[in-house]
């Protein structure tokens, strides 16, 4: 049996039509649902964009200003004898108090003018 292209086309079109008979949903319904989904998508994207904007705003508002970026505050040092070294997870916090942790100097037994050297 040898079918021409046209015969094959006819046979397949009929078979396809059978397969799809009655299956096509109304355009209006599909379009309306798609419209709702598009709106929902827009809303979702709007919310995401809004949240991102709020987060960005909060970040810039709460970000410490350039003046605060001193490792050592001079006034703080003058008011106290204690100083905390800048630290992060790699460098554990260490607090010094110059009265408590003043280095022990090697005592000299030699005097000069009544005072130990």
């Amino acid at each position, binding site marked *: 049996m*040898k*079918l021409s292209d046209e015969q094959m086309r006819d046979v*397949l079109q009929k078979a*396809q039509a059978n397969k799809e008979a009655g299956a096509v949903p109304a355009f209006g319904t599909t*379009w309306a649902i798609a419209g709702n*989904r598009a709106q929902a*998508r827009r809303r979702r994207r709007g919310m995401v964009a809004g949240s991102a904007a709020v987060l960005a705003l909060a970040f810039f508002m709460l970000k410490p200003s350039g003046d605060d970026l001193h490792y050592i505050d001079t006034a703080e040092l003058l008011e106290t004898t204690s100083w905390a070294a800048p630290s992060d997870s790699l460098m554990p916090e260490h607090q010094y108090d110059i009265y408590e942790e003043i280095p022990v100097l090697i005592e000299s037994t030699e005097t000069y003018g009544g005072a130990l050297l």
Partner: protein
Amino acid sequence: MRDSDVLDKNPHISRSALEAIHGQVFGWALSRCDYDQAAAEDLMQQAYVELLTGKARFEKRSSLKTFVFSVVQNLARSRYRRIASRLRLVQAAGVEMAEEAVHPVEPDENSVLWEAVQALPQRQRDIIELVFCRDMTIEAASSVMGVTTGTGRVHYERAKKALRNKLSEWGKT
């Protein structure tokens, strides 16, 4: 094209033009989902969402039908690949998907041809469906499938040859 009909984000597409090809596009969506009605409806809605939001933008480089078929094809590829393969596994395991209404009990020339088409490799099946059943040119069908016209033509010729061989085998038995 009526002005009120034109999509905001896709100025070269009108609602009425889409309505005119709705049936054909749905047939294509159905075949992309292994004839699963619910999946095809979802795929259609998703395709219209892409057009409404302008994510898929029609620039008149092809016919509207070719363009919308491509949108459906691409969505099906990305979203339904797993579902389709699962369905094929189920079918391979012997679960018939209500095909009795389509195929007569006694095999005839038509059902043999239909089954032969279904047994073709995916791309050959696609091009035969697009050219024979959806009235597309080989060039448009190749564009929908995302292959060059030359490649599409090769798939088309191979598919026809395979179908003829299958029918001649059936004629001998």
